[in-house]
């Protein structure tokens, strides 16, 4: 399935599943509230895979945690809304959120070893989800877990059912996590760096599995990752975050061909896939580093590192503007098109 077609198809029917609108999140540090996410907006269509990318400290994971309502005690939503399937979930109480987590939103975390209970057989852990959400009865639950294990490609499901997490390999543990996330048939999966701890050959298997789940079950996926390669493999659309803000969002092919925000362009330039040509050239880099919490400038957050910066960038935060179909950029002086091509030869042709 071509990812681009999938995304346009869902857009055409306007089947929105998740809508994050102007979400702002603040952290309380010693009585002072520091904004860590500001006006984050994006949406996810039914059956769509949306990649959220950025470097560490850009607020990707925090966005994911805000959606599933797992922000820490000193962190709270200070503005904006999160809507799931027409229901505003950002203002729900924690008891109400509990019902939604697992049943309507599934979660996959980075470290399957940490996320699983080491003292509990994995079969029981997955079954627990069914028990909590009161799905099925005692007999049907076990059958359902075995069915889930088969679905996520765990070899020898009956044996795995009785095993403990330490008896499984990293890839298998991540499959158990995915089985657990899928147990209550949620419409939305939040995957936070699901393949970062895995080897490439195993990573490819897990990405295949995510795509397969989307195709067969129509599950939407929010894929949080720092890896542009992973995004380009499976995502339909990409949301690029920087310093707690969305700087650009576009369908994946559009972003890779026509990125407009200087940060996205730099990020793509720093990553070198199989397409780079000469090893003698210096790699393009973004100078400096991501600002830490509390030192984000008042203007455009990327201004100190940006080569395109103009005066207004220092004083005012750029608004999000549409520059194409589903292509949104928050920048006062976006990279002009046609810019130098990232792929193929023509670095000199502009």
């Amino acid at each position, binding site marked *: 399935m071509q990812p681009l077609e999938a995304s346009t198809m869902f857009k055409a029917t306007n089947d929105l599943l998740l809508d994050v609108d102007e979400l702002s999140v603040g952290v309380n540090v010693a009585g002072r509230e520091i904004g860590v996410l500001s006006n984050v907006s994006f949406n996810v269509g039914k059956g769509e895979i949306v990649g959220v990318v950025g470097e560490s400290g850009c607020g990707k994971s925090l966005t994911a945690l805000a959606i599933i309502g797992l922000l820490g005690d000193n962190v709270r939503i200070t503005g904006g809304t999160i809507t799931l399937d027409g229901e505003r979930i950002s203002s729900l109480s924690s008891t109400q959120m509990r019902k939604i987590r697992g049943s309507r939103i599934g979660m996959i975390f980075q470290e399957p070893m940490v996320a699983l209970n080491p003292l509990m057989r994995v079969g029981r852990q997955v079954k627990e989800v069914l028990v909590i959400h009161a799905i099925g009865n005692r007999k049907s639950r076990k059958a359902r877990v075995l069915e889930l294990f088969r679905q996520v490609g765990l070899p020898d499901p009956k044996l795995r059912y009785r095993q403990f997490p330490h008896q499984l390999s990293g890839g298998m543990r991540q499959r158990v996590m995915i089985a657990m996330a899928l147990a209550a048939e949620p419409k939305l999966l939040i995957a936070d760096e699901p393949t970062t701890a895995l*080897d490439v050959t195993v990573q490819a298997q897990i990405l295949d599995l995510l795509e397969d789940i989307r195709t067969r079950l129509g599950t939407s996926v929010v894929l949080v990752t720092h890896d542009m390669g992973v995004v380009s493999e499976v995502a339909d659309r990409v949301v690029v975050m920087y310093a707690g803000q969305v700087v650009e969002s576009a369908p994946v*092919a559009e972003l890779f061909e026509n990125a407009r925000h200087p940060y996205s362009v730099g990020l793509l330039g*720093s990553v070198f896939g*199989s*397409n780079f040509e000469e090893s003698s050239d210096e*790699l393009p880099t973004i100078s400096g580093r991501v600002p830490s919490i509390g030192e984000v400038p008042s203007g455009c957050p990327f201004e100190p590192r940006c080569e395109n910066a103009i005066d207004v960038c220092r004083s005012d935060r750029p608004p999000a503007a549409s520059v194409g179909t589903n292509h949104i950029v928050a920048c006062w002086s976006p990279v002009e098109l046609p810019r130098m091509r990232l792929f193929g030869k023509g670095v000199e042709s502009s």
Partner: protein
Amino acid sequence: MNEAEGAGGSSLGDLPTNSGRQHLAARTGRVEVIEGKKPEDLVKVENLCKNYSLGGFRSKNRVLRAVSDVSFTISAGRTFGLVGETGSGKSTIGKLTLGLETPSWGRVMVAGNDLALLSKKELRDLRREMQPVSQDPYSALNGRMRVRDILGEPFIIHKTADKRELHSLVQDLLELVDLPKDAIDRFPHQFSGGQRQRLVIARAVALRPRFVVADEPLSALDVSVQAQIINLFKKLQREFNLTYLFISHDLSVVRYLSDVVGVMYLGRLVELGTRDDVFSDASHPYTQALLASAPAVGTKKLVEKRRLHLYGDPPAVLDGFSGCVFNSRCPIAESRCFEQTPEFRDLGENHMVACHFAPVSVDVLSKAVERRSAKAESQD
């Protein structure tokens, strides 16, 4: 360095020859550094094995074969890239080549010296020539030492500079790795990850070594910072004619930096050749699968990718293993692969592959993978 392109390759195969003299030099106890001449082999690894005992009761003492029968050479001024997944023995090789671990079998020659035959003092002297850059810049630096002391320490340990010179030497080092001069009085925690890695690199090159082992030096860093560090590695190599053993699981980084590439799987080298040999003309099924699995930047429309994904995870290498190391996951494995260990043979021009069926084309493999998945589905 004239036959530059061939240099990496031509030195790959001729292992046991021509090392007698150097061997002798080492045995007489002099640390002799052989200078000049054509692209010499600075580092030579021969039939290297490393076993770790896992303990156990009486006769059941289990042995983990971390590295088995690995041979390669690195020419001076070149970069040897070592790729492979977790547990494939890459880092063990890094430690062995630095003399931080002793081999169970085989030997490591650096600048003509057999590491195993050197006395402690000689090894210490030779360490000036070979330095590590580790993965985690957070734990590699002593948090209680100022930059001045961290970067000055190598000079003091090896007594190559007196105290008055230290200040300017450290400042030169900071400049070399593009850190501000006023960094000299700061502590490691006052730097970002990328800057810390610069400090680690500065310390490694302080004594102008010839050989640097970089073990996953980028994996703790953000992508945009990774590119900066890669450029630094390249710059230092140009300036000091450094020889790198670059260990990484990231294929694109290895492809970008290396002249010669070795692919490891479960402690064995399965493929070895020039960068183009390995990346454009991969001949081992595992290398093919590894290349196909690595996510490429660009959409599927841009990058036509074949689905060549492997089943399962790599097993642990314990004693009593027979046949090819890759047999449990290989799509084209036959009974022979479970009985006979494939020879590490030359496909021509020192492109070495350990596979009974090499060279294996992508087509053959993808057909085999298709057949397998069809079979698996019918079993369901």
